[in-house]
């Protein structure tokens, strides 16, 4: 049985427009699955629905989202809250913006751990530093004693991933986790994500517009276009042997180092 199964999911807004239309896909344990597509294709809305945090007015009108045998759509508000952070964690494009700017990382992190686990502050602190070290933030104590603005974008992103992974969620959702970063830092974060899966067996759904990153990280890729999933398959099926013209175009459009130049 798959860890996560999305079946014929349709998400509509109050005014009737659909953001996601009849989308199905499944994620096995220990897999990295990428949702790729251009802006407005519905990929972010899809993962938000899994997290149970659709923007106001949005609603899953049809279909099922099943995590480990539980239909997430039939959960109560409280059960959903419990689910978030414990079973499902999310990393956003700009982690810095989702942090409290006037609180030390230490207190935010420890607080986050203690909302899901009944352990002492000291234990939480140790757990946090341990997790930060796994994210290759070697000077974990200094990071813990910093304010968000004192950290660089890449560090914040790694703190965000560490925070998301502390509770060892069944599923990690990453919404454009590298898009706001410089290329060399992006490579570091991609490396971190890869290690999470290889070393710790994490299951990750990655939303990205960067085909290169998706191609490097994913076991499976779903291509989305105007609220629909045009193609879903293993990484090689999508990248090497795409069936849909749209997927081919998308791959061709990515600037490549050895590719043709427009300028003469």
């Amino acid at each position, binding site marked *: 049985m798959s860890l996560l199964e999305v079946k014929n999911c349709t998400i509509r807004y109050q005014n009737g427009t659909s953001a996601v239309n009849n989308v199905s896909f499944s994620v096995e344990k220990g897999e990295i699955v990428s949702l790729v597509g*251009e*802006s407005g294709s519905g990929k972010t809305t899809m993962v938000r629905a899994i997290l149970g945090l659709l923007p106001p007015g949005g609603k899953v009108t049809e279909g099922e989202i099943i995590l480990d045998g539980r239909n997430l759509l039939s959960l109560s508000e409280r059960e959903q809250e419990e689910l978030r952070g414990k079973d499902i964690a999310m990393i956003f494009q700009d982690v810095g913006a989702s942090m409290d700017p006037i609180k030390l990382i230490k207190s935010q992190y420890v607080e986050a751990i203690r909302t899901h686990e009944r352990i002492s502050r000291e234990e939480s602190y140790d757990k946090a530093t341990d997790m930060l070290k796994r994210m290759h933030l070697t000077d974990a104590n200094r990071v813990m004693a910093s304010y968000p603005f004192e950290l*660089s974008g*890449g*560090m914040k992103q790694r703190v965000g991933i560490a925070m998301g992974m502390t509770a060892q969620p069944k599923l990690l959702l990453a919404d454009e986790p590298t898009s706001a970063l*410089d*290329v*060399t*830092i*992006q*490579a*570091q974060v*991609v*490396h971190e994500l*890869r290690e999470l899966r290889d070393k710790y067996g994490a299951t990750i759904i990655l939303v990205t*517009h*960067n*085909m*290169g*990153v998706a*191609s*490097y*990280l994913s076991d499976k890729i779903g291509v989305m276009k105007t609220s629909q999933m045009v193609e879903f398959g293993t*990484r090689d099926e999508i*990248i*090497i042997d795409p069936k849909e013209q749209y997927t081919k*175009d*998308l*791959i061709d*459009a*990515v*600037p*490549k*180092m*050895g*590719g*043709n*130049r*427009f*300028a*003469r």
Partner: protein
Amino acid sequence: MPDNAVLLEIKNVSKEFPVKKKKLYAVSDVSFTLSRGETLGLVGESGCGKSTIAKMIAGSLPVTSGSITLDGVEYTHMKKKEFAKFRRSIQMVFQDPLSSFSPRMRIGTYLCEPRVNYDHVSKDEAMAEAEELLAKVGLPAEFLMRYPHELSGGQLQRVAIARAIAISPKILICDEATGALDVSIQNQIAKLLVELVEENNIGCLFIGHDLALVRSVTQRVAIMYLGRIVEFLDSETLQEEYMHPYTEALLDSIFDVHCDQDEDIKLLAGEAPSPLVVHNGCPFAQRCEYCTEQCRYQLPELSHVNGTHYVACFNPLKR
């Protein structure tokens, strides 16, 4: 008489910003030239000073030292009134399409602005020209009456480009002009830019962080790190001829669509050091795997390799 081929010459330009009691060295001793019909790429990570250079060339930021010459005219110390007229030769296209437009101004009015302001042509005449401009960038005339929020990002960027070329500038600066767009749209805009540069025989400075994209629209690329240009390369042969370790790191950081999943990523350790500190040695020394004692204490100068290839490194990668 200045050399006809060279349009823009930047000589030893530096920019320092006062930050509290310290100084932030945004750009240090940068020199390059740009010819007619040429597109020069400026690549580097955020905070490396590439946008600061753009602003100094556009005249919206004064230089701390150095000179910038356009068509033989040094304009960094021009009087405000004189510069107001001179400014038309340098136009700029910015990254975020939507924020480049006043939300309450129609596209038509926006396009007319430069001609009306600089050449005092009548509104009707300018409007007729605006229609032609729209056609030039591949947009229908009915867009004249639209508001910015009614257009997509790619369409807005086309309009911004149309406005920039309306007064036939000598230099067009694109500061991450395609950075906020989807890849397919990005390519369309890149193509359009290349066409316009060729057609109008203007100079273009194309700033970006995506080396592959920048390479595709330029003839030469300058790689910047921490306020300095570390390597000048020919776009065509960039991948084969690069010699600077930082250029290598940038290339290694690109995830190719057809990459090998099992191959480990070559990581560049750490992050760029603070621009608030003066570095005696090579700015890249701290993160460079080929760093030697000399690199820490002495600043490597840009030295000529061959053709248009220059590199600032004591231990350039041999090939």
